[in-house]
């Protein structure tokens, strides 16, 4: 017994020691580390919040009288749809979290590698990295839980006991997963004390597809289970098909985004006379999957958004049409508006991720950019290159995502035998495209700061 107590104590001191080290390192580093912690916490809070809401709604059994949202949550079938939507919202949130992890990544990798260099063991560095990521996420999850629990008590007199257990579990899942992912991502840094200094980019194609595919499939499977659990199978076949189409189109769009980035980069780099286009094209050619990774969530949201807008209009036309008496119009409009709100939330999260990614890309390259500016390359050219890096590969992928979304709602239109709208749903990709450019443009003020001669001093 005494041996196990001792072992426990030593484990505790080890963890405390690492915690202290992690804290000191974070405290001593620059503002971007804090920005990462903050944004990661926000992402974790969103993920936990959506998860808890899905759990809460999913826990309700049978027909109930719910005083809010015009009875939308009263019936089990509709509730399942809402749960699926909430789970789908996790996709952009995960994308956002992935972007946040990249802030200051170079800096952190170097820091952890130098820890190895001064003699920290690989498990120790892994623990520190896991603690850093896990604690930031725990902060966000705790905030989300702190908001969700009183809300649940307010809305539901006696929630079942298992729901509390599920809440606690969901709150812990995000930090634990974040810790595991960061340990996985840092395997190269941890392996070598010299870190990942001279970077030859590994082939990213397969891993990019996997990182996109895995969460999509996970969330998709979860949503499918919820849907199938509710009603008889024939009723669930259509939503499942939609879900499948959405996923496939998104994966296809990412593949197209990466592929065209490569092709377009090569083609433009060989021909252009314009320096901004040349810089952007060569960057795309060198690392086409970086763009694809960043744009994955954008494309998914576009597919969902276009399908939603098309279906929404057809549904409204149908409900308002002649020979149709709908008693509870508010029930439908609330549902539609709620879905619309979910799409907008997803879009907002995704665009934030894009803006974070653009800023991070600038910060990583600040020494080189400062040198370019010092050598007389105008800021306008560097800024245009930055925007083109987003604009060029996104255009064809956006087109495909728009077409995919259109196919989804056309299918619905044919099944439901109603006239098919074209204008509004097709405007959506254009709007998303413009928003993406705006999101990337938010990094431009940072460019002005980055090209200061002070940056010339650092590697």
């Amino acid at each position, binding site marked *: 017994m005494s041996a196990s107590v001792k072992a426990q104590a030593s484990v505790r001191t080890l963890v405390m020691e690492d915690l202290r080290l992690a804290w000191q390192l974070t405290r001593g580093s620059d503002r971007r580390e804090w920005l990462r912690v903050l944004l990661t916490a926000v992402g974790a809070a969103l993920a936990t919040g959506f998860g808890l809401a899905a759990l809460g709604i999913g826990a309700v059994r049978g027909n109930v009288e719910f005083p809010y949202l015009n009875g939308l949550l009263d019936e089990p079938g509709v509730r399942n749809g809402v749960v699926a939507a909430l789970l789908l919202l996790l996709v952009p949130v995960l994308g956002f979290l992935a972007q946040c992890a990249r802030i200051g990544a170079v800096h952190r990798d170097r820091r952890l590698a130098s820890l190895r260099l001064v003699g920290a063991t690989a498990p120790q560095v892994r623990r520190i990295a896991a603690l850093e990521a896990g604690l930031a996420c725990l902060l966000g999850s705790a905030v989300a839980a702190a908001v969700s629990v009183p809300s649940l008590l307010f809305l539901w007199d006696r929630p079942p006991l298992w729901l509390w257990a599920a809440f606690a579990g969901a709150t812990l899942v995000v930090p634990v997963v974040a810790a595991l992912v960061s340990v996985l991502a840092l395997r190269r840094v941890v392996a070598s004390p010299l870190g990942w200094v*001279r970077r*030859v980019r590994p082939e990213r194609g397969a891993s990019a597809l996997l990182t996109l595919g895995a969460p999509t499939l996970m969330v998709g499977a979860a949503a499918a289970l919820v849907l199938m659990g509710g009603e008889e199978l024939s009723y669930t076949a259509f939503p499942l098909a939609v879900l499948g189409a959405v996923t496939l189109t998104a994966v296809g769009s990412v593949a197209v985004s990466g592929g065209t980035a490569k092709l377009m980069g090569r083609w433009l*780099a060989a*021909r*252009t*006379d*314009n*320096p901004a286009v*040349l*810089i952007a094209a*060569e*960057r795309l*050619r*060198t690392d086409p999957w970086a763009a694809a990774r960043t744009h994955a969530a954008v494309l998914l949201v576009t597919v969902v958004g276009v399908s939603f807008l098309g279906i929404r209009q057809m549904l409204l036309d149908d409900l308002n049409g002649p020979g149709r008496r709908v008693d509870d119009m508010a029930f439908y409009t609330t549902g539609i508006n709620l879905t619309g709100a979910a799409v907008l939330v997803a879009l907002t999260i995704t665009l934030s991720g894009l803006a974070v990614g653009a800023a991070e890309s600038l910060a990583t390259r600040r*020494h*080189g950019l*400062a*040198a*370019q*500016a*010092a*050598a*007389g*390359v*105008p*800021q306008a*050219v560097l800024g245009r290159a930055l925007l083109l890096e987003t604009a060029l590969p996104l255009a064809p992928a956006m087109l495909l995502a728009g077409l995919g979304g259109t196919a989804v709602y056309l299918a619905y239109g044919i099944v439901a035998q109603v006239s098919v709208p074209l204008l509004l749903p097709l405007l959506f990709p254009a709007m998303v495209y413009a928003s993406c450019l705006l999101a990337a443009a938010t990094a431009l003020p940072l460019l002005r700061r980055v090209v200061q*001669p*002070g940056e*010339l*001093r650092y*590697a």
Partner: protein
Amino acid sequence: MSHEVPLLTARALAKTHGRTKALRDATIELRAGEILAVTGTSGSGKSTLLHCLAGIVRPDEGSVVYAGQRLDQLPDKRLSELRRTEFGVVFQFGQLIPELTAIDNVALPLLLAGVGRAEAHKRAGAWMERFGVRGQEEQRPGEMSGGQAQRVSMARALVTGPKIVFADEPTGALDSLASEQVMAAMVHTAREAGIAVLLITHDHQVAAYADREVRLRDGAIEDSVDFEVAQ
């Protein structure tokens, strides 16, 4: 070659970074076609002096005059244009865009000036030839040795036909043989083309390539040696 005409004149420069005085009362002159070495220990203000002279930063006090223009008063846009056309800049590292091939890196200032790609490549190729890096055109900076990358950087600095090249520790990251080859190529080309070079270095062997040496200490000129007068 006449060394009498001052091409660039800086008077009583002062510059403070936070609480450190990087420069105080530095007065310096660069004559047309000369190679001037600025030496001094680390932190003596060498780089800050170069930044002020090349119009990369504005001094807190004092004036910098190039071809009758006060650089410390020109707008940023004009300074940027000047650095692109009349000046060339070479740093220890980092001035090449990692994603661009060597020839595109060299051609970039010409593209910025609106020269077509084919013509820009032709001229860039000729400069790469002069610096002995012909054959590396399609390589990216990460695929070249440090010495090759610095020679490509010099080709890029000279491709627009500048009047002055500002070189900040151009051989700082190189071994002595590569350093010698880079310096020989730069000095040879600059003398041939009549380009003035302001060379920042803490290496005496590199400074020995210059016609004149100015030594900085704690942000002020400690000593100025005109080699030809000393001779």
